[in-house]
């Protein structure tokens, strides 16, 4: 089997997150692969619909939950449209896990602040569940999630669950104009809510993911709160094909997102050319 040949997976569950975003739960057909498959929070894979092509997404489920993987995607192009049309029981392909991961072992004993905009919650959600499934290892957990509108908030059932937990501080926000009459969360852009939530920086780590513009305005807020750039992590998703450092397209200057990433610290990003 060559490295480009995927494992077969079966769609076990489909969850509509927003009008254009769906989560698929996928189970490996090969029992041995299902039993032995391991990954770390932050890694990604190549998902494919046969006859349509491959797409790169993070693994959105937590490595603490074995036997299946989940991906969340927005219906934008050819492959994601085909993925949206798959029924429970249909088969597709997956190869991975690829890339580096969030260094959770370094964060043990510390506070973690998760900040995610829109579908950027997918890779962050993987880490959130990893941390919550091993809750005693960490101290304060803060989650800040923003979307354009109430309808665009992803993982709504999980947001509710996190909001009800006494050991999680949850902030949800929508862009001005995106609120509904019964909206009880915040209204405002993510950087402003981060400022308002003001998580303490001492012994803390931040994991930030979202659109480039959100990241651009959130990093200075975090730095002002006292988060050093080497304790702020994000994950990048450049266009990729091979996922394994050969096809030549995902580099940012000397760094290959597929091999050196997709997880980077703000300090690492600051050293890269501004080409992402």
């Amino acid at each position: 089997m060559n490295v480009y040949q995927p494992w077969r997976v079966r769609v076990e569950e489909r969850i509509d997150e927003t009008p254009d975003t769906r989560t698929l739960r996928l189970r490996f057909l090969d029992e041995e692969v299902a039993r032995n498959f391991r990954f770390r929070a932050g890694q990604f894979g190549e998902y494919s619909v046969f006859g349509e092509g491959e797409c790169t997404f993070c693994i959105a489920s937590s490595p603490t939950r074995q036997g299946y993987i989940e991906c969340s995607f927005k219906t934008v192009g050819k492959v994601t449209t085909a993925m949206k049309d798959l029924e429970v029981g249909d088969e597709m392909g997956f190869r991975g896990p690829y890339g580096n991961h969030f260094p959770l072992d370094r964060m043990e004993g510390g506070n973690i602040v998760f900040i995610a905009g829109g579908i950027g919650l997918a890779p962050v959600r993987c880490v959130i569940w990893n941390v919550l499934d091993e809750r005693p290892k960490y101290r304060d957990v803060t989650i800040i999630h923003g979307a354009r509108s109430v309808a665009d908030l992803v993982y709504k059932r999980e947001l509710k669950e996190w909001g009800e937990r006494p050991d999680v501080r949850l902030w949800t926000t929508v862009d001005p104009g995106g609120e509904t009459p019964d909206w009880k969360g915040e209204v405002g852009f993510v950087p402003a809510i981060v400022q308002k939530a003001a998580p303490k920086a001492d012994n803390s780590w931040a994991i930030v993911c979202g659109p480039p513009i959100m990241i651009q305005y959130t990093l200075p807020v975090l730095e002002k709160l006292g988060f050093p750039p080497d304790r702020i992590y994000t994950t990048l998703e450049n266009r990729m094909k091979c996922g394994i450092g050969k096809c030549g397209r995902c580099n940012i200057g000397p760094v290959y997102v597929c091999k050196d990433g997709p997880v980077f610290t703000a300090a690492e990003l600051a050293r890269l050319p501004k080409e992402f």
Partner: protein
Amino acid sequence: MMTNSTLITQEGLSALVEDLRQARIQVIGPARVSDGAVEYRRMTDLSGWTPGVQPRRSLKEWFLPVTEPLFRYRKEGPRVLVEELAPPDAPRVVLGAYPCDAAALPILDAVMGWDYRDEPWFARREATVVISQACPGGDRSCFCTAVGLTPDSAAGSDLLWKPNGSGWQVRVETAKGEAFLQQWSRHFQPANGNHVQPAEPPPPQPLRADPERIRAWIETHFEDPFWQEISLRCHGCGGCAAVCPTCHCFDIVDEPENPVQGARRRNWDTCQTALFTRHASGHNPREDQCGRCRQRVNHKFAIYPARFGRVLCTGCGRCARTCPSGQDITEILSRIDQWAAGPGGAGT
């Protein structure tokens, strides 16, 4: 100067090619094609063979085909059957590779083999004996001597040949080459000193540049206006990448033959197009030709050397000869080298 060499005559070579054909070993060599150009082609005899003329395109496509299936699939209702393909390991001999093409092979082994092993590439590599013929001297676009090679470099060659009047003087470069020579020894004869010595290699090409200095300049001049300047004449056609022996970027696409079956294929791609890096959202990290031209030069002379310790270029000069707007890599490298060497240059 070649020592301990072996010889092969024109007649011996003809007989060797016939024996290879009989043994079902594919022979690939530079040959005239219908439009008069020379390309690496499958040969059954020496009638169209043109050693000593640089083929229009590199040898790359015989190891990384323009398009190749990675596996096949067949859908049966919700189920999918994935059909693994046999590795492309049919035995082959390249007869008369250009040294600048042969040298690209070990360069590409590095990227094809790090961490994950690209089986189709290595299946072809292992099944192929590369016999190179020393270059008789190139044109003003050639610059192999500026990237650490020479017209008679043996890099990537299992045997290196030089014409010596009536035939070729043969030098063994690898164990695979030695085994080939042993297997087909009846067509070769030992050199006994009476033969004409091969011609001296041609003089080095005009471009003098220091790859280390160039790399240092590139690494510190990402925002330099020079990239904008060179991009103004670029059409983004990607012709440079198509003819290049070391450009290896590829795309992976599904090509259905009908609604239920087809293949996932690997196709050549190029960093010179917008689609190469465009995200599904429409955002493009390399949104104009400036970024794409910069990427190509960066990848070859800074990024690849940083990771694999050598430039991603053999100085074959094809990109300069092919470019419809006259983009000349020797001019680009020469200017960078001069800046790097000058006051305030990154190389000082």
